[in-house]
């Protein structure tokens, strides 16, 4: 069971990173973005491409950073992918969602996001094929931390967990110590007052997509490192990431982080009692429980 707990923590960190962007979009733009999870796919595949390119261009970076399977090139690729994915999110908003928003049909944005998700997911399938990829073909052995109870941890997983926490701490610092962070929180709390206070709404909306996309990219890369990269990554992560935002409370970044870990851990602990075939349904059960007992989530507030 402790293995499940540790695995849950790891999955949770990935979900948290994906949920941060989603909770901001859901709260500020008021729509459930079913294509947010596809940003993880874009991030993972973009990093794959960059990895190939950087690996060729900078042979020095091809060597792995022992004991991880990570190469310097992959780290650079992740950074490049963060930028690219963030920009993609902004572009998608400009091309599709903003136009629908401006036409007054707010409710249609959810609907459109389904369409966008289909296009991205299957576009990736066309480009990269239906099979899965890996960042590295090296066989990495897990470290046996304890034999009874059995606990195996791959060094990559430690890296992922630490990197995810570092990113979250950085985000926290931005939110609590920079005027940009105040502006972000202001827009989330009261967009009209934020504008009155001098904040340019359209810029902040673009930033929300940018940050959400960048964090989703890291989540995608981490997922690819921990499992594998495949075109249906996004589809498999949609519901858990939504569950994370609902558990934490829509609109709360800290809630999204908390929610991610709760969903990750709960989903993995559920495997102790449920056959593994049922694990895709667990996030839904979590959502049901939250809706019954605490619909606004742990850190959420009702917002009209």
């Amino acid at each position: 069971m402790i293995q499940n707990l540790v695995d849950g923590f790891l999955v949770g960190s990935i979900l948290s990173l994906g949920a941060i962007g989603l909770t901001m979009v859901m709260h500020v733009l008021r729509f459930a973005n079913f294509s947010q999870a596809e940003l993880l796919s874009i991030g993972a595949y973009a990093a794959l491409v960059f990895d190939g390119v950087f690996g060729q261009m900078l042979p020095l970076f091809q060597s792995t950073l022992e004991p991880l399977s990570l190469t310097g090139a992959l780290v650079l690729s992740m950074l490049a992918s963060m930028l690219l994915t963030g920009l993609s999110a902004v572009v998608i908003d400009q091309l599709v969602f903003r136009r629908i928003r401006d036409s007054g049909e707010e409710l249609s944005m959810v609907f459109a996001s389904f369409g966008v998700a289909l296009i991205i997911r299957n576009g990736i399938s066309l480009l990269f094929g239906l099979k899965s990829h890996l960042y590295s073909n090296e066989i990495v052995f897990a470290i046996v931390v304890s034999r009874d109870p059995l606990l195996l941890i791959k060094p990559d997983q430690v890296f992922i967990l630490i990197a995810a926490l570092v990113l979250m701490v950085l985000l926290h610092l931005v939110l609590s110590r920079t005027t940009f962070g105040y502006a972000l929180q202001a827009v989330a709390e009261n967009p009209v007052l934020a504008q009155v206070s001098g904040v340019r709404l359209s810029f902040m909306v673009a930033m929300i997509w940018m940050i959400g996309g960048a964090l989703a990219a890291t989540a995608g890369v981490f997922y690819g490192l921990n499992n594998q990269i495949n075109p249906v990554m996004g589809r498999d992560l949609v519901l858990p990431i939504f569950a994370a935002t609902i558990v934490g409370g829509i609109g709360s970044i800290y809630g999204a982080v908390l929610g991610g870990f709760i969903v990750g851990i709960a989903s993995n602990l559920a495997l102790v009692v449920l056959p593994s075939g049922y694990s895709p349904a667990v996030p839904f059960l979590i959502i049901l429980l939250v809706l019954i007992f605490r619909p606004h989530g742990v850190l959420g507030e009702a917002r009209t």
Partner: protein
Amino acid sequence: MSDPVLRVEKLVAGYVRDLPILWEVDLKLNAGSMTVIIGPNGAGKSTLIKAIAGIVPVHSGLIQVEGRSLLGMRPDQMSRHGLAYVPQTDNIFRKLTIRQNLDLVLRPLSLRQREERREVLLVRFPTLREKQEIRAGALSGGQRQMLAIAMALAGEPRILLMDEPSAGLSPKVAQEVLEQAHALTSQGVSVLLVEQNVKQALRFADYCYLLADGRNQLSGPATTILQSPLIGEIYLGGNRIPEVAS
């Protein structure tokens, strides 16, 4: 009489295109004066202020500050024209501390200028200084109002728009707020405010506009309006200037 620093002419405005709330409203704010807008509920007083602040869409008419038109400006651009606006409710960010609220409004400035301006504001509002690191949501109603005004003053505005600044405050605190607003006029700030608290507001104001049903009804020096018997009638809905047949 100097040129008005803010001029509104034949303003038609409202949230929905075909349903204007304001109908051909005129208003002038003279430099260094404190002008108050009064009227019964639903008169459109808040809407008028919000239209000037750029929050409510304008359908037709004129809004000018020192000769320059404000139409089409976004609310975040208003400070460039020396305009600041204090909403009636939800006028501070509850999740941010007092200091963070102020820093947010002071964002465009350099770090040093920000510190200087913040210092000036905290000197003016000592209560805020001692509670700097407290979340605005934990403050009392009066303290929140103080913060809201401080935030509006942070940009050193030439025109201050306030929507019922004394709402929800005890009479003593309400009077302090109106006194402070009036004191600003001697520092070169022109103040336009909406008030339900007619008697108190008219004691401090120079000029007054009475609105009902989205239209001008009366206007004049505050002392004159205060003594006019028409006020009671207009408030109670009896005597309204008839709508012009369109």
